């Protein structure tokens, strides 16, 4: 079946199977920043933004996204792009595999949390797992990016 998605600001038609998850469709069409890791909606690696809200694309049917706006890391712009630099500056890029999902979640968080604190950041991001960094370095980088002090 054919669906229409606005991916990173560009409207395109996608030929999908009705039972396909969004992650599979996006990867099939070349949005390779979107990664699969757990298959069960547990780890946050596959996160993309659907109408600016973080969504686990491994458990979100592509058909649900019809006519919606999808943002992947390839499509982030402006100030949001600097988040990657904060992560690299702190050395928490490591294997990098969870970075696209984390970055998109942080971008959504920045819009959503009005007075972010260390605790509210940790709580918001707790569904984004990382096996390399032990989290604390990521937190340092994200707090700097958000302008939140200890």
């Amino acid at each position, binding site marked *: 079946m054919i669906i229409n998605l606005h991916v990173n600001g560009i409207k395109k038609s996608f030929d999908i199977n009705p039972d396909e998850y969004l992650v599979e469709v996006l990867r099939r069409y070349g949005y390779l*920043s979107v*990664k699969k890791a757990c*298959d069960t909606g547990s780890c946050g690696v596959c996160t993309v933004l659907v109408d600016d809200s973080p969504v686990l694309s491994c458990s979100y049917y592509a058909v649900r996204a019809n006519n919606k706006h999808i943002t992947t890391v390839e499509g982030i712009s402006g100030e949001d792009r600097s988040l990657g630099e904060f992560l690299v500056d702190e050395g928490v*890029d*490591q*294997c*990098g595999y969870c970075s696209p999902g984390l*970055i998109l979640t942080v971008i959504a968080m920045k819009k959503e949390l009005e007075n972010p604190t260390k605790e509210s950041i940790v709580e918001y991001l707790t569904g984004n797992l990382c*096996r390399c960094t*032990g989290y604390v370095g990521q937190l340092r980088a994200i707090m700097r990016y958000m302008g939140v002090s200890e």
Partner: protein
Amino acid sequence: MKDKFQSVGQNLSKVDGMGLVTGKPLYTDDLAPKDCLVIKILRSPHAFARIKGINTEKAEKLVGVEVVFTHENVPKHLYTRAGQSYPEPSVYDKYILDEYVRYVGDEVAIVAAQSEETALKALKLIKVEYEVYEPVLDMMKAQGSKSQIHFRERCFLNMDKGFEPEKNISAVYNFSVGEDVDEVLENCHVVVKERYKTQAQAHTMMETYRAFSYIDQYGTLVIVSSTQIPFHVRRDVALSLGISAGKVRVIKPRIGGGFGGKQTVQVEFYPALVTYKTGKPSKIVYDRKETYQATTSRHAMALDVTLGSDLDGNIKAIDMNIISDTGAYGEHAATVLGAAGYKSLPLYNRVDGARFTGKAVYTNHIPGGAFRGYGVTQGTFALESAVNELAAKLNMDPLVLREKNMIRKGESSEIFNLTTVGVGSDPIPMDSCELKYCIDKGKELIDWGNKYPRKVISPTKVRGVGMSIAMQGSGIPGIDTASATIKLSDGGTFTLLTGAADIGTGADTILKQIAAEGLGVSYDIITVFSADTELTPFDVGAYASGTTYFSGNAVKMAALDLREKILAEGARMFEINNEDVLFDGLEISSKDGNKTISLIDFSNKLIYKRPHIQLMGTGSYTTTDIAPPFVAGFAEVEVDLETGKVDLLNFVEVIDCGTVINPKLARIQAEGGIVHGIGMALFEEVKETKKGKLITNTMMQYKIPCRMDINNIVVDFAESYDKTGPYGAKSIGEVVTNPAPPAIVDAVFNATGIRIRELPITPEKLKMALINK
């Protein structure tokens, strides 16, 4: 010492960092050809069985199925999946496919089809008839079991490590130093004798196992794989297919985490086989369930430790006996087992006698394999728990007990001589052992003086602190090889070619820093290319904490070699003696200042004018030197007495890894490694049903630490310099994981009086112990 260096010690960002965080297609599956065959594997539902009959007719007839392999039509060459230097100490006990299946998840058939959907459909059409055997599901009963998992005539040994399949023994490891341990123990005033158990732990790297393959323009079988060991994959795949290693090329792209899991050749055999037989590109991507079910995990162990001391706390004897569960296959069986002893017992080098005995037994569990720490994590847990128990028995501060007994700078342990290939019998002094500093600094950072042993917060909340020391190796002396080449290109730029496998650790980056240091140039004019068996020189790969030390030393040799050649060419150009030439990184000049040429002009002249050469420096490194890193770890926990839940409030680790090549990246290595230890201590456990079927096969059931589980982690580095390391560096990757489990267990003990000897410390386990107290 640090001030001497230009590039070493700098907080350089990872050379691939921006590519990774901007989502560039750099990982294996991003690079696979779109139209390649997709491979799926039919797996055994039984823990132990023989395939009596297998019918693939219907599957083969399914439209879109390219090929189906069973044990009846694959090449039958024995191998081990363990990524180790040849000849491997692991038993060759595996075929690509076998008529025996030895755990739930073992491979039965391989299907390659034009789509994933078709391949999965085809799996369902394969009919298998099994003769089911009684499985061995308790490692403590493996040796006496009537079920024999492997057969001598169906295995191959490079060397005798005590393989005794009739008793389900894959390997035996024994050594002892000093006086007879039993006699010494008899004369000890205080003795601790306990059994500790460590669980199987799953790596849970974010990128699951995967590889793809194709035949290139030269007829070479190319495998692109998410691996830590490209050069071992090349050799092992060639062996499994019965072809020359010269026909196989392995490329490692960017890797989404490994932690030892990818030190085993998990998936590469299958696309290699399919592409070799069909000539078509093919790929395999394990889903999360397969990754948990059908790869490897940390060897579960039962460790008996007996410690004896006098009344003043001088430890006189240590006896360690281990049963290690190597599961269905013997990957890393002997070496993980031995490392549990020979990289933990030297911590207490003043004993009158130390003895290590151990067996790695086959069971019908998921195979054991390499996992960050490689047995040392298990050994450290048992030994350090026992030392903490001794401190409690003596009513002595565990720090004081460590100070009395631990290895110190300039001292040695005979165990190093006994367990290291080619090292000889002269004592090997630990010139860069800063354990004393690590303990003193950690004590201060955790505020031990005020917090030890416990603080009652409320009627239901108690806090406690605990600690542990640990060591590891820096690569495998006498076994490992690393090599590197650096070329000077036109335009005055350098390319570092290294076989080392960066799996996210930052190896490419720190090796570039070492190259810059050796050449005496800015790291900005060096590019790195790594881990392609056809294009880069040999390196064993990313394991045994060997990259900084071995690969780093090779890069340093290559850099110094090339620098010499630059000076020699400068001398020839200026018609002066070599020793009268200077190279400051930008210009080559004569000492008297009369002649100068920029590096750019120099390199252009070399290549385009006379003498029409490209200068290259190379280095291959091995050693029998031993350069263990040391750490001290301190945990502060808060226990909820009502629920048994343990919150880790603070974890402090002070690390002696020699010179810190890149403090920023080293810190993250440490923080990540500590959290692996925390996961092992508190959350993670591979669980199976009574029939051997995996329960923890998703990330919903298998609990790695999440963000809210991790509070404050403090990492600090000791000022240290190891003269055998590249610019003084030792390793960091694994040692950082070791202290968390024993330190957390002791913190819980100090808080509650309950000693957990079987990991992990789950709330139910602790609550039951509190109830029964």
